[in-house]
């Protein structure tokens, strides 16, 4: 980086001197051919570093993942020795593979945990829209007024978003320790913790994790909605109030429709984030001791990296990518389309 910075700085003045006299205005008007070369050199200089980094460390690994997914490989031996297995890594994940001899065993060992992990991702998507969205919307609508301590409230509610999932997760691990404060408090009100423990319980483990995810991310939704609401004209609301509209009617008929675009973008981010969720569930006992709240990403790491089944892990990665890609395209084509077609945004 420093080297490039330096070369950029050196190039600047040097080039300037050679051209200063001859070019009064946009260089391209005078010597098309020489300027063409120069222009391309400049473009290469400016875009080059970013493009090279991006192609090498983003595009190439993604393409490699697609390639590895067609092989059986442990990640240690030479890749050239790896066995080409076609789409069998995919079929193994989806329905246990097509070989009748192993299908039943593979179904239990691979296919079942895969679908379980996937179902958790979709449960998180569904619950985010069914629980986080209304909660965040209600909080944002009530906080959307001037009151003492408003700025403080906003800052505090948003704070968990900037904490790392890992540190927040570790904090909640301690709070939901079987002997921790959560257990003592539930006992104090005459209940008990879930039978297997807050995280280990087959049913409640998932809900505990969903609660933690909500704690971490609901603030983002509230802040985004508040930003949207601050752009809704007060005249509109006052006019409605003069016409006798109740607080609820104003929210329902004016504020919520007008921040629709913000809500839809938030939902988009939330869906994509839910599909790729990893850090939090990994910190919370690697997706659960029996995978109670595993996600596709945690399943991929479990198998690919920690059990050295790189071909299979890569196939899971590709499935995850295709899933978010298809969902993103479908969402943009259907739900976001009207927002983009219609320039009247909330703000």
């Amino acid at each position, binding site marked *: 980086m420093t080297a490039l910075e330096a070369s950029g700085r050196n190039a600047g003045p040097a*080039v300037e001197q050679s051209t200063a006299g001859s070019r009064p205005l946009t260089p391209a008007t005078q010597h098309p051919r020489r300027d063409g070369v120069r222009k391309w050199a400049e473009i290469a200089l400016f875009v080059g570093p970013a493009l090279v980094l991006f192609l090498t460390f983003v595009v190439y690994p993604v393409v490699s993942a697609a390639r590895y997914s067609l092989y059986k490989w442990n990640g240690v031996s030479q890749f050239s020795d790896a066995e080409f297995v076609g789409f069998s890594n995919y079929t193994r994940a989806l329905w246990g593979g097509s070989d009748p001899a192993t299908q039943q065993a593979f179904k239990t060992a691979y296919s079942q945990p895969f679908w379980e992990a996937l179902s958790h991702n979709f449960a998180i998507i569904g619950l985010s829209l069914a629980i986080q969205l209304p909660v965040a919307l209600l909080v944002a609508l*009530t*906080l959307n*007024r*001037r009151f003492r301590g408003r700025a403080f409230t906003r800052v505090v509610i948003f704070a968990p978003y900037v904490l790392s999932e890992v540190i927040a997760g570790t904090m909640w691990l301690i709070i939901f320790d079987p002997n921790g404060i959560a257990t003592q408090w539930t006992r104090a009100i005459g209940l008990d913790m879930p039978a297997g423990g807050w995280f280990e319980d087959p049913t409640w483990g998932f809900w505990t994790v969903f609660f933690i995810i909500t704690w971490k991310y609901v603030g983002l939704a509230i802040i985004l909605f508040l930003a949207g609401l601050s752009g809704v004209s007060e005249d509109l609301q006052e006019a409605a109030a*003069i016409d006798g509209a109740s607080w609820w009617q104003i929210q329902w008929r004016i504020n919520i429709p007008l921040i629709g675009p913000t809500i839809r973008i938030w939902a988009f981010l939330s869906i994509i984030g839910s599909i790729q969720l990893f850090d939090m569930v990994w910190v919370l006992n690697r997706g659960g001791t029996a995978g109670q709240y595993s996600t596709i990403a945690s399943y991929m790491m479990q198998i690919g990296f920690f059990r050295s089944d790189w071909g299979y892990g890569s196939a899971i*990665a590709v499935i995850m990518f295709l899933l978010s890609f298809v969902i993103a395209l479908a969402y943009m084509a259907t739900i976001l389309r009207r927002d983009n077609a219609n320039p009247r945004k909330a703000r």
Partner: protein
Amino acid sequence: MSVDTQRAGASSTRTPRPRRGGGLMPEGSTYLAIGIGLVGVALTLGPIAYLILGGFRTQGDLAANPTGLPDPFQWQNYWEILSGPLFWRQLLNSTLVAVATTAAVVLFGTMAAYPLSRYRFRGRELVFVIFTTGLMFPLTVAVLPLYLLLRDLGISGLWGLVIPQIAFALPVTIIILRPFIAALPKELEEASFMDGITRIGFFWRMLLPLARPAMVTVGVLAFIGSWNAYLLPLLLLTGDPSGMTLPLGVTTFQGQHSAATTMIMAYTSLAMLPALAFFLLMERRIVDGLTGAVKG
């Protein structure tokens, strides 16, 4: 509809109302707002306060009386962590990685966004589209091959974090910066060329200072992303804890001191503080950056 707007227009011209809070909102909801605000603040700060206070407890106090104030109040956990080198090393590692990532992302991102917004050349939109596809490739998808690539290239340690993090942060950076740079008035460039300044000179002398607000925004986002990163450190920084960044350091510490919960609480609290401090300093920027990114 037309009646409504007419009436609204008339009333707003006739009686200029003072702009209090919700203006004419039905009364009582201010108390509701304060109530909900208080609940939100308690739910947010409660766990954090519990964690920080827990660091001042003894192990026995935590088991017996987790709700009240620490009794006895002891500094030992915090003192032990702060007087040893491990926490400081990890803090330094996290800082180095985040600063290097941020600086490079902002520099390379601005450099790339400049021609993509202000030059005209064939293939410009193609290059831009290539960068935007990056939004669809999360690190999770690429992480296994990325690990192998870094191993083959011999890039290890903190550089192994910095370089991929730059690459993965570039798309969103360029997407945010491009419209901002494109919106700068064209006359600036023309005047500069008139004065004999080249495009490269224009970039260094005019564009960088003018684009600073947007650069701060993308820089803050890149910094937070790097500071909180876990997946890559998990794969790359195995072994010696003093080579780790804070998030990985916290989980490793937790694994090694599983019996000493109050010690883990102290360590986690300390690891949390820099992020909270940064957040309080940059809150406005973070919110602007996120809402800006969301509105595209």
